[in-house]
């Protein structure tokens, strides 16, 4: 059972972490806002993007079959995995059959879900992260703290030290160009000698069997072009019906994520190397991962979670995420999208704290490019977490139900339905409330971070009557 409330104060009391996140989030919010300066254009584009994804979700089973048929016809081998363990063994099998000892990786959140690097390491296969941010956290033996910018929690000084400790011949330098050049040199040979490349997928087009990958660095293109074998990993929801659906998603994703109108590279892969072509992998595999997504699909309200295009705008704008950072959530997907996705994938019994780590301020809902009703789903999941039983929509529903909370609400409901009881109870509280000690069990949740409220001595009804109001 994870406990967000125990970890949050540690992050809140870390001034470096607070500064690193504040600086990054402020910059990202300003850059995004500049890209969507025209509210009418934003509304039209967003509506289109949201419906593109809503259509893809509504038609998910047919589109998956169409994607599989198209990819297969194009020469891409398609694999299905129900669990992350199954996906790992599919990847391992492909790599072992090819005799691969080293893989170079482009950024993939699905591979983080699978804990693929760790798994491959256990089977004697070295996985090297090539996205600069992922490379940095791999050197630091950490997990990503953001789904788009994995090392956003680190500042220049921390990275400089990490590089000085890990890259041969490089002294301590905070010069960003020098650090970037050092990473380029270190990774060039890894690319040239890798036996396989592994990548994620941003959008898979069912109509043509095309895998669309966006990136700025070129490491994604290298991972999918230079090694003789390419394995692409995707969640089963990352689909679009047609190629015409790609432009609105491409217009929304980088603008929402980093405030760029387009990424430096948009890589569209439709087949392995064809006869006569001089480069590109000889074999391309696509692994479709379910891992709880088909269960999310079973509930028409929760299903909207599957529209997500993983831009990260919800976390960039979240007052909670921007103060505690990604590691505090403890799961692969942090921030608002994580708070609704994780409990559904992992179960409320082990991630039930996540939907509660929110103020329901709606900032995420306002910026979500595909209009996922995140706040509504947070409330729904909170309800599910104390559901008295019978709900099968979410694994672990009811696991946060407690007798004292249930009893309190029953008492509350009874009081509000019976005027005499209500009058008696409020009068009693008004007179005796100030006698309750500040650290009494029922007060502690409130008073551990706030001052205990002072009771007025008389109820609101009594005070109103004194002012001359006859009727309530």
């Amino acid at each position, binding site marked *: 059972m994870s406990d967000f409330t125990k970890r949050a104060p540690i992050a809140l009391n870390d001034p470096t972490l607070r500064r690193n996140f504040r600086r990054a989030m402020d910059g990202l919010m300003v850059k995004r806002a500049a890209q969507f300066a025209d509210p009418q254009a934003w509304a039209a584009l967003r509506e289109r993007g949201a419906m593109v994804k809503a259509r893809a979700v509504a038609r998910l*089973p047919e589109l998956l079959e169409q994607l599989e048929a198209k990819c297969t016809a194009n020469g891409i081998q398609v694999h299905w995995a129900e669990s992350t363990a199954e996906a790992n063994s599919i990847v391992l099998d492909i790599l072992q059959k090819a005799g691969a000892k080293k893989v170079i990786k482009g950024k993939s959140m699905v591979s983080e879900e699978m804990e693929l690097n760790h798994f491959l390491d256990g089977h004697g296969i070295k996985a090297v992260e090539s996205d600069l941010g992922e490379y940095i956290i791999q050197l630091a033996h950490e997990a990503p703290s953001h789904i788009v910018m994995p090392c956003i929690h680190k500042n220049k000084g921390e990275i400089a030290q990490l590089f000085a400790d890990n890259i041969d011949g490089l002294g301590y330098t905070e010069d960003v160009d020098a650090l970037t050049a050092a990473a380029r040199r270190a990774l060039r040979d890894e690319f040239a000698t890798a036996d396989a490349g592994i990548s994620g997928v941003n959008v898979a087009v069912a109509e043509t069997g095309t895998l669309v990958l966006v990136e700025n660095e070129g490491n994604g293109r290298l991972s999918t072009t230079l090694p003789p074998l390419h394995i692409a990993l995707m969640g089963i929801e990352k689909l679009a019906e047609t190629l015409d659906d790609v432009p609105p998603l491409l217009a929304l994703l980088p603008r929402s994520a980093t405030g760029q109108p387009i990424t430096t590279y948009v*890589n569209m892969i439709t087949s392995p190397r064809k006869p006569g*072509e001089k480069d590109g992998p000889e074999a391309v595999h696509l692994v479709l991962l379910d891992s709880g997504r088909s269960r999310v699909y079973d509930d028409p309200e929760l299903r909207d979670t599957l529209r997500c295009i993983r831009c990260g705008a919800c976390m960039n704008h979240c007052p909670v995420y921007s103060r505690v950072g990604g590691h505090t959530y403890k799961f692969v997907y942090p921030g608002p999208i994580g708070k609704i996705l994780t409990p559904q994938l992992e179960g409320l019994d082990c991630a039930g704290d996540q939907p509660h780590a929110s103020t329901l301020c709606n900032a995420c809902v306002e910026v979500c490019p595909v209009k996922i009703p995140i706040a509504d789903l947070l409330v729904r999941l909170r309800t599910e977490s104390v559901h008295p039983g019978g709900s099968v929509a979410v694994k672990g529903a009811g696991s946060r139900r407690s007798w004292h909370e249930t009893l309190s609400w029953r008492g509350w409901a009874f009081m509000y339905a019976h005027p005499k009881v209500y009058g008696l109870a409020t009068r009693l509280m008004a007179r005796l409330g100030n006698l309750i000690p500040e650290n009494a069990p029922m007060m502690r949740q409130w008073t551990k971070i706030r001052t205990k409220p002072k009771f007025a001595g008389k109820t609101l009804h009594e005070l109103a009557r004194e002012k001359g109001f006859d009727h309530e």
Partner: protein
Amino acid sequence: MSEAARSRILGRLRAAPRTAAPALPEWQAPIYDPAERVERFCSVLEGSHAEIYRVTLADWPYRLRTILEERGTASVMFAPNTEGGRRLVSAWGDIGPKLVPYDKTVEELKDTLVHGVESGFTTTRGGIAETGTLVLWPDSDEPRLLSLLPPLHIALVRAADIADNLPGLIRAQGWAQSMPTNAVLISGPSKTADIEQTLAYGVHGPKELIVLVIED
């Protein structure tokens, strides 16, 4: 294993309650006056750290040779069987930076590609004015890595092939019926902002991008 997983995953998705697929609302990507289209393409791409040269069909190989000589670029890898590649060879003669043909498979040329050439030259299938984007359509004549491994990428684009936006280009060129092994949109040199949101160029792909726009 995969076959059983497939039928169980699809089975669960099919058993779930169906919802109607909503209609797609109207959306129009930006359009430009024909007179400003090329200007916009050039200024946006320049804003993304590319160097733009306006050239003519007759003079571009000579202009390129001069540009590279002035920069001190020692070698250019190119595709010998494209129209652009042939023009390079005939215009270059024995002078200018060394021309290195990409005429074998990557397995045979890997060392040259990774460490041995200073620039790569490619043609393009068009451009996009809205985002300042080049559209590359690699094939058996023009390989994928030419635009990716050398530290400088030089791209040739005809002004007449520049479209207003991506949706227009996809429809006009009939992409859905003809997707190649790999199509790539390029909007500047390789870059990253992973270290404190500070922009740095050339992290994995080319550090610099030169675009020749043929205006006649």
